């Protein structure tokens, strides 16, 4: 990805097919595009599922093949580290093997598996002692985040494109709790009530942290005109 940039304004490249589906530069970004957890997931047939639930190891291996990309990618996004992502993918499929017989079809299998993997990730993050949610950060904005400070002036606006590397760095630099909620909501597509349930916090807290995460990313990507670079 290196120096490549994501255009913010400018002529649409949609017709050329240069951008992934759903991305059209120069037009208002869709407010709720397809999230990662709703990406085209391979369908596990009822017969395959039934065989795996009955202990057929070959059927389980087939389920792994159908879902390995999605679960590994989820772990990689959440941890940002390939070795840990492998470890967590292994743990998620081990958990799946233990629990697959208990799946009763209340939700789609892919949704159930995704949530199981999220729980594995959260357990790991908690084990690492990371503060996943700041309980003292309710909806009340702090001084530095009050309107006026968080709005750009002429010297603080984003330029016409977002540098992927700078954005990657900015996301990695977010405090753990902000990063987690940003990833769960904006990338994985979970709603605030689901995040609140997973993290055992209030919906307001989840909303507040997401907004602060977005503002922090914007701050990190602002460009100064006098050659001060990005901060």
């Amino acid at each position, binding site marked *: 990805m290196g120096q490549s940039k994501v255009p913010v304004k400018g002529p649409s490249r949609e017709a050329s097919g240069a951008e992934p589906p759903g991305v059209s530069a120069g037009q208002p970004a869709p407010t709720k595009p397809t999230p990662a957890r709703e990406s085209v997931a391979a369908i596990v047939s009822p017969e395959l599922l039934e065989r795996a639930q009955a202990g057929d190891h070959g059927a389980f291996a087939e389920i792994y093949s159908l879902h390995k990309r999605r679960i590994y990618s989820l772990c990689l996004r959440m941890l940002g580290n390939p070795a840990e992502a492998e470890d967590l993918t292994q743990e998620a499929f081990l958990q799946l093997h233990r629990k697959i017989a208990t799946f009763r079809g209340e939700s789609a299998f892919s949704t159930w598996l995704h949530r199981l993997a999220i729980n594995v990730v959260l357990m790991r993050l908690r084990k690492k002692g990371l503060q996943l949610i700041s309980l003292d950060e309710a909806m009340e904005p702090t001084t530095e985040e009050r309107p006026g400070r968080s709005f750009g002036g002429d010297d603080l606006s984003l330029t016409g494109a977002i540098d992927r590397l700078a954005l990657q760095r900015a996301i990695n630099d977010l405090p753990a709790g902000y990063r987690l909620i940003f990833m769960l909501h904006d990338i994985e597509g979970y709603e605030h009530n689901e995040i609140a349930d997973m993290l055992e916090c209030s919906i307001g807290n989840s*909303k507040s942290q997401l907004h602060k995460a*977005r503002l922090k990313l*914007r701050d990190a990507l602002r460009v100064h005109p006098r050659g001060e670079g990005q901060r």
Partner: protein
Amino acid sequence: MSEEIKSMKCAEFQAQLPELIESGARAAEDPHVKECDLCRELLENLEAIAEAARQLFPEVEPPEELWEHIDSAIKKDKG
């Protein structure tokens, strides 16, 4: 419009922004956004960042040998 009144409207808009985005409403069509350059810029920036972030994390294949590790972990778990 005085700066103070304008700032009040910006404050109100920002307070509602997480809800506006979450609800899927067309925040860009909010009356305040239409008349306030700063808030319009804020909204455009946040949408552009979220969209750019989604492009940063495509699905990738895990290493081939991962299944072998999982397979042996399952066998160990059974035993």
